Structures are given as structure tokens and as C-alpha cells.
């Protein structure tokens, strides 16, 4: 029998040579992508993945993993299998030539901050 410092393990009376059986494919649950919203009106941000057998449980686990230590208004879960993604092989699609830099939206982020600042100082 395994004698552990952890009384819970000792109580289980596990044989010394007990081998843990490997997982069969059925033991693996599918994954859900978790999106976290800090406060109402904010965008939901992708924060990570949980394993779950159904959407309800994915929501529970998402709350625990990503909502527990954060201020949370709302959580979305989406089956990973339902995400339709681009291929990394096609990443060259996103490349841009120096002449088209005027199209990049870097300025917008700054404007958001400026507007927020203006608004905050009005109030």
C-alpha cells in the first residue's frame, strides 16, 4: 500500500505497483473557447480554453477558470470545433506593402484613448 503524507491518498489503500490505466479516446472531452466580458457593453475577449462535455458545463468551468479572479459581467463559450479559422500557411494574405500603410488603423486606438480622456475630464 502507498503511504503518503497526504492522508487522503493513504486512505485510498492504493497498491504500490498500481498502474493508472491510460485514457481511452472517449475519456477526452471536447474543448470550448472562453470569452470573458469585464463589464456590460465591453467587448468579449478570448481568454482561453476549457474541456467540457456540453455547453452548460463549459460555462461552469469557464466561470471558474477565468471569471473567479476577475471582475466579470458575462461569459461566452463556443465549441472549438465551431471556430472557422484561417491557415497559417496563408498568413502572407495579411502582409501589406509599405505604400499601403495609410490603410492601417493604428490611429484609431489613440483616438479612443483621447476621447475617453476628454470625456472623463468633462465629468
Amino acid at each position: 500500500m502507498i503511504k503518503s503524507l497526504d492522508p487522503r491518498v493513504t486512505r485510498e489503500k492504493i497498491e504500490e505497483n498500481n498502474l493508472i490505466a491510460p485514457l481511452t479516446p472517449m475519456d477526452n472531452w471536447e474543448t470550448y473557447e472562453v470569452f470573458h466580458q469585464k463589464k456590460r457593453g465591453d467587448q468579449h475577449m478570448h481568454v482561453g480554453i476549457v474541456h467540457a462535455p456540453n455547453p452548460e458545463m463549459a460555462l461552469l468551468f469557464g466561470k471558474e477558470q477565468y471569471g473567479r479572479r476577475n471582475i466579470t459581467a458575462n461569459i461566452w463559450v463556443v465549441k472549438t470545433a465551431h471556430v472557422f479559422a484561417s491557415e497559417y500557411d496563408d498568413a502572407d494574405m495579411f502582409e501589406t506593402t509599405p505604400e499601403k500603410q495609410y490603410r492601417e488603423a493604428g490611429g484609431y486606438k489613440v483616438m479612443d484613448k483621447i476621447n475617453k480622456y476628454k470625456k472623463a475630464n468633462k465629468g
Partner: protein
Amino acid sequence: MNTTAIKELLYKMADDLLIIGHRNSEWTGLGPILEEDIAFSSMAQDKIGQSQALFQLLHELGEQEPDTVAFTRNAKQFHNAQFVELPNGDYDFSLMRHFLYDVADQLRFEMLANSSYEPLAKVARKIKGELKYHVFHANTWIVKLGSANEESKARMQNALNDAWNYALGLFEEGEYETILISEGVFTGEADLQHRWLEIITPTLTKATLTLPHENAWEPKFGGRLGIHTEYLDPLVDEMSEVFRVDPNAEW
């Protein structure tokens, strides 16, 4: 207001929460999957926190410090129902107990949110969200496992049968039942049990599980009077080990 009656109510609630919180925390690190391990542990922690809030109320009514009350009594001085001290068994039993106990707990606090004893009503309102989440967690598992496959259904049904009479023991009436009711502190165990049956029955039906036949209902009473199973002694020893070694330990 009758302080002795209120103390009796607070003690049994606090002890239920402390003991089931400790039992559930025994799953930490051993849970079926990582995500569930974290969820169950975090709810166990909530329960310890809720018991502490009630021990704090007792302290304000003249009892000793929460830690002293929690960690220096022997098993006979605990007022928890026998249900919460039973060993965890397999995860099916732990989940079934979590479901049966947490629904009762949520209803009890819901009823106490209107208690004439305002400090308790305040605690009840404060932890409403936690309890709602615990019950959501329990319902989700019970419905999922009750109807997943033959093995899970059989396990959940057995767990329900094993848990049932102990669960009924939660509603053991105390000496001061009528005083608590007449003073508007709490509407009573019988009322609670009635509401509890109304809530758990549809969920169990949805999970395709069957309640034991009413003729076989034999509530396991005694816990409220300090009569416990053989399992509480070792639990209390283990739970209070650190406190007994160093009462001033901080962590």
C-alpha cells in the same frame, strides 16, 4: 428575541457548512478532471467562508472566536446533520450530496433573507450569488450524468438511494423550532423540506432518476443533538490538526 434559539439555528447551519466544506475539499487535487477539480475546490472554500460568517455571528452573540469554535470542539459538540460527515465515496455520491445539500442550503438562506434576525438576513443576502452558482453547478452535473449512459445513470441512482435518508436528516427539528417560527426568525424545517422536495423533484425527473418510495423514508436524525456516525471523529481530528499544533498559525 430568544438568543438561545438563534444560537441553535446558527450552530447547526455553520457546522453543516464547515463539515461539508471540509469533506468537499478532500477532492482537491483528486477531482475527475482539472476544471472540475478547481470548481469543486473553489465551492468548498466558499462553504468554509459561509460557515465563518455564521461563526462570526455566534461570536457577536457571546460565543468564542470562530477559529476556536471551529477547531477545538470534539465530534459530540458538533450540530451538523450526519449527512455532511459521511465519507466522500466515489464522485457520484459526492455530487449527489452536493446537489441534495446545496439546494436545501440555497432555500434555507432564501427563507432567511427575510428573517427578523437582521444580521443573519444580511449574510443570507450577501451570499445569494454564491449559492445560485453552487446549485447551477450541481443541477448541471446531475442532469448530465443521470442521462449520459447506463453506467452513469445506475451510479447516480445508487448514490441517490444511499444519500436519501441521510439527506432527510437535514430537516431534523430542534428544541426551539416553534420559538424561531413565532419570532419570525425562520419559517421552520418542515417548511424547508416541503420547498426542497418541490425543487429537487423536477430536476431528478429531468435526470431520469427516481426518488426512493415514500414508505422507505427513514430520516437519519441525531446530528443536531451531537449524535454522529463513526466518520466525524477522524474528520474533526484531521481538520483541527494544524490548529492544535499551533493555534496562532497564519496562512
